């Protein structure tokens, strides 16, 4: 276990609000080591503090607000190394505080959520888009501030439909994340009445940094003509080499090219520029989707404490899942939780690396409850029952 840092700031000044009682919220950020397979390119090194930096930015926001109300916030950051016992670390964290922000693979999220010590806790998934976690494998104590993969593929499907790009092909990688992204995409295309005219699996072992311009035109030639090529390459292994090397001159979307993302440095509307700038000044790098999910988790708790003047998990959970809760998340709409599966509703950015192209839900995609529920699993199709 490395980097066990305690960021604890206690403000006793009440700035003119002396009548408020003291309320303190301690949260643990636990990141579980997950080995990633090698990728063709080593252009993008993942920041070591991914997620953590977002949580700390959210903590600062909470502290600034809390000092006017006599509310104190602290965050313990625990980052595990390969071989560390994640369950033991989770138990230790839960003994100290019922609030746990998790960066962990899906199986580990469930193992921690199922601990007896976590029964009355509030856990946040900030790292996995796995749909099952929001569906039949949902847990009443596990909330999700990261969108499901399906929310992101639905966003792209809405965009394809709006643009009338209805002739689609897909290339899928061989990693489990690629396969599940491709599954989510297929189901999104069906949902919006689109279909794939052709599919291929990425099977190269060659070094595409050198061979892409020779190999990819041939590899994509037999896909025929189409409107958009979708790539399911969630680990960013081969996708970057496909762009501009396809046989047909067509746009690329999915994991590369036009992407649907939780957060991106190109988001600047709706006051987002302020959050981006706060984050960049503090961390000297761009804010990622996982940072945003961790920021949203800690801000969710902060917002609930601010509005309820309480710090016990039962009160906070009730408030967070109630219609009264809303988070201003710099996405142009109030963010709320789906009370039936614990997913944070949020607009999804459709962007390329240089600009925002659109924001889903797109105009015209209507819903009887909330337009944001046109993205991802909707209540009638959900198999999540523990929230009822």
């Amino acid at each position: 276990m490395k980097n066990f840092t305690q960021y604890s700031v206690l403000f006793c000044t009440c700035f003119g609000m002396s009548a408020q009682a003291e309320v303190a919220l301690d949260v643990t950020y636990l990141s579980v080591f997950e080995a990633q397979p090698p990728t063709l390119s080593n252009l993008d090194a993942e920041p070591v503090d991914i997620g953590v930096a977002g949580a700390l930015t959210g903590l600062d926001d909470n502290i600034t607000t809390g000092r006017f109300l006599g509310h104190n916030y602290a965050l313990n950051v625990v980052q595990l190394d390969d071989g560390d016992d994640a369950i033991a670390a989770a138990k230790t964290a839960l003994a100290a505080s019922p609030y746990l922000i998790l960066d962990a693979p899906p199986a580990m999220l469930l193992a921690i959520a199922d601990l007896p010590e976590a029964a009355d806790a509030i856990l946040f998934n900030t790292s996995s888009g796995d749909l099952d976690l929001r569906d039949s494998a949902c847990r009443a104590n596990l909330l999700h501030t990261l969108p499901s993969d399906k929310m992101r593929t639905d966003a792209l499907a809405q965009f394809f439909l709006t643009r009338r790009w209805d002739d689609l092909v897909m290339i899928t990688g061989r990693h489990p994340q690629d396969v599940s992204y491709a599954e989510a995409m297929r189901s999104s295309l069906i949902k919006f009445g689109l279909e794939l005219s052709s599919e291929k699996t990425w099977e190269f072992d060659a070094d595409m940094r050198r061979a892409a311009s020779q190999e990819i035109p041939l590899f994509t030639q037999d896909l025929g003509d189409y409107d958009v090529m979708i790539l399911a390459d969630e680990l960013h292994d081969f996708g970057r080499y496909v762009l501009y090397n396809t046989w047909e001159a067509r746009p690329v979307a999915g994991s590369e090219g036009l992407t649907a993302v939780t957060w991106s440095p190109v988001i600047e509307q709706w006051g987002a520029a302020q959050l981006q700038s706060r984050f960049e000044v503090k961390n000297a790098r761009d804010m990622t989707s996982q940072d945003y999910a961790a920021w949203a988790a800690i801000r969710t708790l902060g917002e609930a404490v601010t509005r309820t003047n309480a710090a016990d998990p039962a009160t906070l959970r009730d408030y967070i899942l109630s219609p009264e809760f809303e988070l201003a998340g710099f996405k142009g709409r109030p963010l709320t939780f789906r009370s039936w599966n614990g997913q944070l509703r949020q607009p999804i950015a459709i962007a390329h690396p240089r600009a925002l192209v659109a924001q889903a839900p797109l105009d015209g995609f209507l819903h009887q409850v909330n337009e944001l529920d046109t993205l991802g699993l909707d209540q009638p199709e959900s198999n999540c029952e523990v929230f009822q």
Partner: protein
Amino acid sequence: MIRSLLLSTCLAAPAYAGEIWVTNEKDDTVSVISTETLEVIATYPTGERPRGITFSKDFSVVYICASDSDAVQVMDPNTGEILHDLPSGEDPEQFVLHPNDRHLYIANEDDAITTVVDTETRAVIAQIDVGVEPEGMAVSPDGKIAITTSETTNMAHWIDTETQELFANTLVDSRPRHAEFVKDGEQMWVSSEIGGSITVFNTADQTELGKIRFEVPGVHQDRVQPVGFEFTDGDTHAFVALGPSNHVAVVNADTLEVEDYILVGRRVWHMAFNADKTQLFTTNGVSGDVTVIDVASREPLQSINVGRFPWGAAFRP
């Protein structure tokens, strides 16, 4: 604030001629619109990302928040010449001029600070810690209270202008953007963009008197986002910009009921009246224009193209 400016104007100037000054956030300019011809008669360069704009009481200078230049610029409105910059703290977004015509209360959006600057000595006389992303600014007509709203902390912070210290902090709905004192300072109104509401406070004890909510037919509730608002003569009605719903609401200031919705340009931010308050000019950020509303009939009259992303608006006779 514009209300008190206008009162003195009406007494002094019998003619109804005047100008609406609009800051263009993404063009680094101000556009000057004639309220007679409804045309842009001048465009002047400013510092980077101009947003808040207000005139001195005698209209001899105009103050402009140049957010990305980290300065409040002082411009000669007759020539468009920048006379000098005032120290403003980082990223000034909005400000309000104290009735003493000297002290500017400035929201420093990136720093969670309200800066008070003396426009004569050009010195910072106080910096007050407020919530995250301060934005809306107001000052009571008697000058005793200044307000800063903070967008992420979701509060109105009440500043005692004698001591330059906070004496109260009141929670409002998400993302408060704009504040105004109403009815000779008896009430203080705050709009909440994401919360979709205006909260009305009793100034004397900072208690909540009521809340105004908006429902624009055919527009999803989430897109109805109140931002700037201004009051008609006698504070009988408020005109409220509703952001990406592309409408302005007309609110009865006594009953707090919404009486009308007026279609304007896209993402309407702020507004200013002409001299006799018969016309209202709204800045529409996304469509890059200004909508002129006839106040009596509550109908839009015409659109005027200005620069990119018009934001603030202020009137001078």
